[in-house]
């Protein structure tokens, strides 16, 4: 079973009691398994390509569930500890399920000086996210702090999915996030 615990975070208790939802979860589960094996099929067994394999899996699944890391390690011929070590070392990898939209806050030097922190706080408030969690309860947003997109002249920068916003002010945040359901 793929990351059951993690799945529970996505669906509320009421939903779990609901038969239809249970079936849906089963489908999601099978879908995950299928996506993992399909993605790994494209790779030849090569220990040096473990990072690329994990990147590909994350692109498909949105994050790296335990099952994906184990399967990738087996396929690429590295110990599971090595794959897990890599997945936890690099910033790009996420081990928890993500919301419908991923939000990146740039915390580079220029953005820091131009008030990245206040944008970040305004967003937490507007999207109802606690400081220590990185996904909102309704599964709408997952937030990440990143280091520099290299668009420093447009600081501060916020990127939501593939849309990039520059010179963002705290008062604009509500308007920007209303576009993302």
């Amino acid at each position, binding site marked *: 079973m793929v990351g059951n615990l993690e799945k529970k975070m996505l669906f509320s208790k009421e939903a779990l009691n609901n038969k239809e939802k249970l079936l849906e979860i089963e489908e999601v589960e099978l879908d995950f398994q299928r996506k993992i094996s399909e993605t790994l099929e494209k790779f030849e067994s090569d220990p040096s390509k473990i990072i690329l394999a994990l990147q590909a899996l994350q692109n498909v699944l949105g994050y790296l569930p335990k099952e994906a890391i184990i399967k990738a390690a087996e396929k690429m011929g590295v110990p599971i500890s090595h794959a897990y070590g890599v997945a936890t070392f*690099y910033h790009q*990898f996420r081990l928890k399920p993500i919301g419908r939209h991923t939000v990146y806050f740039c915390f580079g*030097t*220029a953005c820091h000086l131009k008030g990245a922190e206040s944008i970040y706080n305004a967003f937490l408030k507007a999207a109802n996210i606690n400081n220590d969690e990185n996904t909102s309860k309704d599964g709408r947003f997952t937030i990440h702090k990143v280091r520099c997109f290299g668009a420093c002249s*447009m600081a501060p920068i916020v990127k939501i999915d593939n849309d990039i916003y520059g010179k963002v002010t705290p008062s604009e945040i509500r308007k920007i996030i209303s576009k993302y359901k």
Partner: protein
Amino acid sequence: MSIIAYLRSENEKLPKELFYEYEYRIMVGISTCSLTKRAEEIKKIIEKDLIDKKMDAKLAIVGCNGMCYSEVLVEVARINGPNILYTNINPENAHLILDHFINYISNNQSLFQSKIQIKELKDEPFYALQERRILEYVGRIDPYSLNEYLMIGGYEGLKKALSMSPEGVINEVLSSGLRGRGGAGFPTGKKWKFAYESKSDQKYAICNADEGDPGAFMNRLTAEGSPFMIIEGLTIMGYAIGANKGYIFVRAEKPLMAERLETAITLAKKKGFLGENIMNSNFSFDIEVILSAGAFVCGEETAMIAAIEGKRAMPRPRPPYPASKGLWNKPTCINNVETLAHVSLILKNGSNWFSQVGSEKSKGTKVFCLTGSIAKSGAVEVPLGTTIRKLIFDIGGGSSNGSIIKAVQIGGPSGGCIPSKYFDYELDYESLQSLGAIMGSGGLVVLTESNCMVDVAKYFLTFTSAESCGKCTPCRIGLTKMLNKLIEITNGKGRIEDIDYLINISRVIIDSSLCALGQTAPNPILTTIKYFKEEYLEHIIEKKCRAKVCTSLLKYEIDQEKCKKCMVCVKNCPNKAIEIEEGEIIFINQDKCIKCGTCRIVCPFNAIKVS
């Protein structure tokens, strides 16, 4: 902001080939910076306008020319006619461009006087004071077109290199005096020579496009605007050191750069500029793009090699240097994007041409990124040895809000803060080192009186302590200890002996860390203590932050004379700290105030005082 249209001078005319068979060439700048300003939409508007007007025009996507402060940029040129660069374009005014250009040609521009100001580009200091070499065509050619790169003389460098011996190429680079543009400034030719002299059946050439320095984006800008120039440079390096396999290690946060480099590789392979028997020579070379999974420490050569090998990016002790034992223990040579761009031009124009400009020990030009509180923020290419003053005042237009510039931070988390009294120093590798900073990749962050130097030091330590790979103790633990001290100081809990503590621990970290990340991480702290000790002392003794940045040291109060009792602050305070006394006076309960600053932002009458 109204459109400013810059007329290019005669000597900046585009080569005729770039017009193909068309009368006009229209160039829309699409890069990471302009995408924040809806550049894609603007392109569509112009596309439609072209069809409506039935204009005989070639529409090209180009990179950013460095004038990031006036995005979006659109350039229109007519064969044998004028060439105008339009700035500050947005989806609302984009429809004016073509009309203006047509009317300009027919001398009928009075129609647009209120909306479009026309100036000569040679009168714009931001542009005119540059020495644009690697950036010459960045923002004017299509990064997705190998043909356009060839039209501006691309691949002539490689052609020349292939007609020379590898030693000849290395000597050319050596005599140019080119030094690595990504960090400490090691002579590129020497690096190549070491790799060339290592005997092995397999060698590797790597382009570092990881650009992890926050505040630096010249590599992104160059590679997004002219990716073939980087590929050409890497191919020349491969030929010189005897490698037939190259890698470009690109940062995952810069996906557009990766996409353009990848497309360029595919096109170059198709046309025989990569692959077997390049340009009908005996030399074969292939390049693969590796997407970095994100770790600042990858800027360290041995860490990057570990990452390409599929491991955690942890550096290892040197020697052996990568030139003898690098990727998979084979001789490996690593240069960054900007260095390789220069290589292409050195081979094309000769080492003498390259070393015509620059300072005595640092030859050639360098791209600097001007960011922070500066009026004209962007990327500029100037000869090494240019003064900081010229860069930030003459070219960058001084501070963005009229406040006094007190320092520049250069070199990212490994660099230092240089106070205004040294602004007449010439920027080169040696002078920066003598001031306690480093060139790094050339990010220049302008700091004014509204920036707190202790906060800046804390910011960089937050960065480096989080990015420390954890392998060696001085860096892993030392940086955390230093960060904790700085947090205490900015929270008003600092002690006078903390300053000596920070200096001592810095020396230990510099002397005993394994790689350059740790060895240079104390630089921002040491330089701020050296040049701005009074700010540290104020935080420690007076519990005061003069820039009003360190929130724990601030006290928010309501100016009763200005307060109109509108209650906006009361409603917006997240901690219900603003209270009403006898239905009359509104005041902030200091015990409850969390110093978030919300009241100050929302107050319509400017009645919140900060002290």
